[in-house]
């Protein structure tokens, strides 16, 4: 607890007035949140609350209807090199013909740049990252032969290889064994202590209180955000998981059903 930084001065992510919809289905409604730098941040909320969508909006994978997002005080496009995004494990085809080391090297592609090939040093870097996660011995293994926990470690190693200031992890603990979860948290804490920011979409409420510094409670709109001690309260949880949002949800759907306009203009 003592290591936790108090009231970070800079915001890692600034989300302003963000509204996102998939087709006619509203996913995020006018979300306004500051995520401070140098902390381990949990994004918590029920299924379909827009947690993953928030991450995707940050890295420009979904276009917002309204609002803007800044990463370290600039649009994401200018901060790409500072951000590592770790998608959900199921989002890729693990039958792809490649090995663990190669996946980790993918984390360096952005830095290597177009047309150029990875060098020996890049391989070395990737290997080190695998080592940090304790799976260097699996470097040459075909990715389809890795267990779920190992696949998740490979994904985190790929993010480490990017050496970013901000980590965005989408459900990294889904379908992962306890040992992997411990390892990952250990590394996340190291990263935090080096001044990096870690944002995790999380679904296990049990572990929020002792493993995260800061929490963002989300259910379609922002319910609460703040240091865990302040924001992770029974009242806020009640509002997140059981709160009365019917009017808003109904309004949101009405709006977006009729207002397909801007969506299809994009």
């Amino acid at each position, binding site marked *: 607890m003592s290591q936790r930084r108090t009231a970070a001065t800079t915001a890692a992510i600034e989300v302003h007035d963000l509204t996102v919809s998939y087709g006619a289905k509203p996913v995020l409604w006018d979300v306004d949140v500051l995520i401070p730098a140098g902390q381990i941040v949990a994004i918590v909320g029920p299924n379909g609350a827009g947690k993953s969508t928030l991450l995707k909006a940050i890295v420009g994978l979904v276009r917002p209807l309204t609002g803007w997002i800044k990463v370290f005080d600039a649009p994401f496009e200018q901060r790409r090199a500072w951000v590592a995004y770790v998608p959900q494990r199921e989002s890729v085809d693990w039958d792809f013909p490649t090995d663990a080391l190669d996946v980790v090297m993918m984390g360096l592609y952005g830095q290597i740049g177009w047309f150029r090939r990875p060098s020996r040093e890049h391989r070395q870097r990737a290997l080190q990252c695998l080592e940090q996660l304790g799976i260097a011995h699996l470097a040459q293994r075909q990715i389809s032969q890795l267990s779920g926990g190992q696949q998740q470690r490979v994904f985190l190693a790929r993010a480490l290889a990017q050496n970013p200031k901000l980590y965005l992890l989408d459900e990294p603990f889904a379908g992962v064994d306890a040992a992997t979860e411990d390892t990952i948290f250990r590394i996340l804490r190291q990263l935090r202590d080096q001044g990096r920011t870690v944002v995790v979409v999380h679904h296990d409420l049990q572990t929020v209180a002792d493993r995260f510094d800061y929490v963002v409670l989300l259910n379609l709109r922002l319910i609460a955000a703040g240091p865990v001690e302040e924001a992770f309260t029974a009242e806020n949880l009640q509002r997140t998981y059981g709160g009365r949002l019917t009017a808003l949800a109904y309004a949101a759907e009405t709006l977006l059903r009729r207002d397909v*306009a801007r969506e299809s203009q994009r």
Partner: protein
Amino acid sequence: MYGFIDFTLLNVLAGSTLLCAVAALVGTFALLRREALLGDALAHAALPGICLAYMIVGDKSLPALLAGALATALTAAACHRFILWASPLKEDAALGISLSVFYGSGIVLLTKIQGLGFGTQAGLKSFLFGSAATMLPSDVKFLVALALVVAVLLGLFFKELKLAIFDPEFATTQGYPVRMLDVLLTMLLAGVIVAGLRIAGVVLMVAATIVPPAAARQWSDRLGIVLLLAALLGGVSGALGAYASAVSPWLKTGPAIVVVGSMLFLLSVLCSPRRGVLARWLRERHTRLRIEEDHLLRDLYLVCEERGDFAAVVGFVDLLGMRGLTPGQLRRVAHRLISRGLLRSEPDGLRLTDRGIRAAQRVVIRHRLWETFLSKQLNLPSDHLHRDAEEMEHVIDDALLRDLQEQLGYPTTDPHGRRIPKETDQ
């Protein structure tokens, strides 16, 4: 003489209509199983069977050729399933492989037949390109029987098939023979395609199983209706295509049917009332116009409210300043509102009519009520309210309005301290 021509035409018409309707029925299930292109592989895989049957039987007897075609088509379907089961290869690769390898072996057999002097293979090839113009009464009878079989089977197993396609795992736990249903669907698809090959040809048969279902899917979300519509659209394209080719001889029946089907598909994608491209565009346009009108009404209302006189004439310059509209935009919006009797044009500006005032009130009520809702119920800071309400004022319907009023206890002022008017106010 004329009677004979009419009879032939009638044959072709009836046959094409039936065939396309049946193909659309089985195709709908393939489409919903996300296996739209399975028919492509099945149709190509008929070739080796046709050749084999000819080599074995020694003549072009129809039942033998059909049986051979069906046999290899089903073998190809089995190979496709086997590849998916036995390897990490995906759907598309498995289909591409079964399609090309079976068709390739068919070509090998075809050239063997030529080389071994089995006589001409021309008849066999026409099996693949189809010649609907030569449809005989016996063909039509056969198609009627086929249509009956397919319709009866699909009707009998309708709900089981629906469940097996939608959620195979649940269906299995409920004790439905999902695998058998899968085989049934594949057999029906193969049967219809093989039966239609000689009439419509490979690619055109594939089209008959994909295009009408894809078109029908645009109009409804209910399986039963999609099925009926697909059959209908298939039948219509079959009939129209056959008729067109009867009228102008260079239009071959098969391709003509597909072209008609494609047009129906385009029409569906463009014009379907809910999902259609055109409908989306119209809705978008309608919303845009509504928003412009609502904004102008509210702007006028605000100016009048400030002056304490709702019958005041508001100058164009004031209105232009409020939203940075160009004079042209303002003129267009004002013109629409004038023609609806909500505004009156005065020499030095615009004035709200009585109806206009009521319309403006509607917008203002919704705007301010929504601001109150956001501020009271969602604790949003006051600088966030306006932009959101700006959008919501156009879409809050009466039900939601009552709901909001009730929830908020019929407030009379908004968070900025302005009065929320009542609908009957003047």
